[in-house]
């Protein structure tokens, strides 16, 4: 009995240790900072595009008036948006310009942590205003990034904040951070959940089971940006692409944690999402998903790729 208790205690101590290593090991914030640049750029562009018809999509009346949307959302207090309360067009434009600036600051890394907090509040505000209506997967991924960027030191590298510190003579190295690790782990796990449920939903589809779904996706004229209808003569290729997509999505949450399989899993992500971006016209969504996959890059890899360019920019700006 004593032996069993000791074994259980040993197991629990080991599990707690592994849990601590997984979540609370300090890490170089390079990956998080790189994601801030990419996600910040995506948030900036996504929201800049609303400017083309702001009143119609986000305004009080427009395509789908706020009252109608609130009715569909069930008038829940927790479904919130600053745009539910803005009546005048000039007020709408003021908030919109402020929002676009916040996302620009987030991308550039100016007042990074504050920009990240405002960025999250504003991204959710826009998303709730257009859900349902004009939202799609991109808004979900944008809000996911905005949520987790708030948690870590996303401006520690590759940011104007860092350059500002250097100009003031603060040349101390960037310290490893536990909160950066937490933020990255949350993005990774959230992505695993996204793929798992996307794969499970596809299992219910007859065309995904039959191996023809990729055809029906590329044969959609409204989505099509680059024709892939030549696939009509290649049913085996369509079948392979369909089945690989389903199995890859289903097992992503397991395979991506294995360091030998991770490169394969991530390269499939590149092919799938670049395919969506190139052939189905969803460049923004495809890129946003790819950015999320980059959360699995080691900080050392990110630094090897990004530091030379970042150093050159910093040198120019700091003299």
């Amino acid at each position, binding site marked *: 009995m004593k032996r069993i208790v000791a074994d259980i*205690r*040993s197991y629990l101590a*080991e599990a707690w*240790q*592994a849990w601590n*290593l997984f*979540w*609370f*090991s*300090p890490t170089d914030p390079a990956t998080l900072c790189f994601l801030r640049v990419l996600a910040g750029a995506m948030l900036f562009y*996504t929201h800049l*595009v609303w400017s*083309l018809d702001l009143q*119609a999509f986000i305004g009080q*009346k427009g*395509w*789908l008036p706020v009252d*109608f949307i609130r009715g*569909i959302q069930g008038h*829940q207090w*927790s479904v*919130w948006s600053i745009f539910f309360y803005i009546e005048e067009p000039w007020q709408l434009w003021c908030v919109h310009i402020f929002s676009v600036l916040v996302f620009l600051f987030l991308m550039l890394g100016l007042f990074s942590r504050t920009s990240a907090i405002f960025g999250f509040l504003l*991204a959710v505000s826009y*998303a709730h205003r*257009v*859900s349902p*209506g*004009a939202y799609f997967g991109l808004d*979900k991924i944008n809000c996911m990034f905005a*949520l987790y960027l708030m948690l870590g030191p996303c401006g520690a590298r590759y940011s104007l904040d860092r350059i500002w510190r250097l100009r003031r003579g603060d040349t101390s190295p960037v310290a490893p951070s*536990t909160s950066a690790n937490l933020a990255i782990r*949350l993005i990774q796990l*959230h992505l695993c*959940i*996204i*793929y798992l*449920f996307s794969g499970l*939903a*596809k299992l*219910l*589809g*007859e065309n*995904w089971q039959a191996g023809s*779904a990729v*055809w029906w*996706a590329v*044969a*959609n*004229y*409204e989505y*099509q*940006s680059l024709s892939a209808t030549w*696939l*009509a*003569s290649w*049913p085996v290729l369509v079948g392979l692409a369909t089945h690989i997509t389903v199995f890859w999505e289903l097992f992503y949450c397991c395979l991506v944690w294995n*360091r030998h399989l991770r490169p394969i899993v991530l390269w499939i992500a590149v092919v799938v999402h670049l395919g969506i971006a190139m052939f189905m*016209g969803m*460049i*923004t969504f495809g890129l946003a998903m790819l950015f999320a996959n980059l959360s699995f890059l080691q900080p050392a890899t990110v630094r090897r790729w990004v530091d030379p360019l970042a150093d050159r920019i910093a040198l120019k700006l700091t003299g």
Partner: protein
Amino acid sequence: MAKNNQSRQGQADSDPAEPKKKSSRSSSGVPWHPVWRWLISLLLILHLTAVFVAPWDLSTDPALPPGYVPPADAQGKPLPLPPRDSTVWQQPVVPRKLREFFRHYLNLAYLNHGYQFFAPDPAGSNLIRYHVYDSGGAEIAAGQFPDLDDQWPRLFYHRHMMLAAQTGDMGEESGRLYARHLMERHGGQSSRVEWVLHRLLSPQQVIDETPLDAESTYVVLAEIRETAGSTANPSVGELPVAIPGAGR
């Protein structure tokens, strides 16, 4: 992973009392106080459960019991199934209750949705075609969305595509609202909006050189006429179609 295996191996060979010592030593490399780590661990578990629960609940459906005999009338003709909230249906209790528990948190963080990208099956696109008329009945504006010639850049086009696609989810009322908006935008007195489904072609049809945008591939699902001040109801032709890419 390798590190964990090593430590597991090391502990298996050592005295059962030792893990406590090992644990405290390994934790010394982790900077936060154990109380903080416990607290944050609890929050992490709650958050990840919430993130998991939303798509889980949305991907589950109620089911009829095995061997259920559908109701029939006196002639043996099958009657419609009972409504999905009736007691005959078995509800997925666990995901429903969990999502209800986390509902406000999920709403606040914009997490209360699924991830059904192009699932369960890719479907044809929806389009909205419109005509706006002045008080004399002359057409003053016409167009459709999505429309690549009119909506640029691609993301702006895609927003219009979603607007048309989600008509299916929002029901008839959204079509009327589009008609009203177009009337106001163009200063018209009446408008006609067609909700159109663009059907997909099979590989064989494409091999036979039928163009993807052949006229025969467009089907009008509903037509909505709106006059300034009136509230005419649309006639819905078919059931709403799935929204590719939108997810739930």
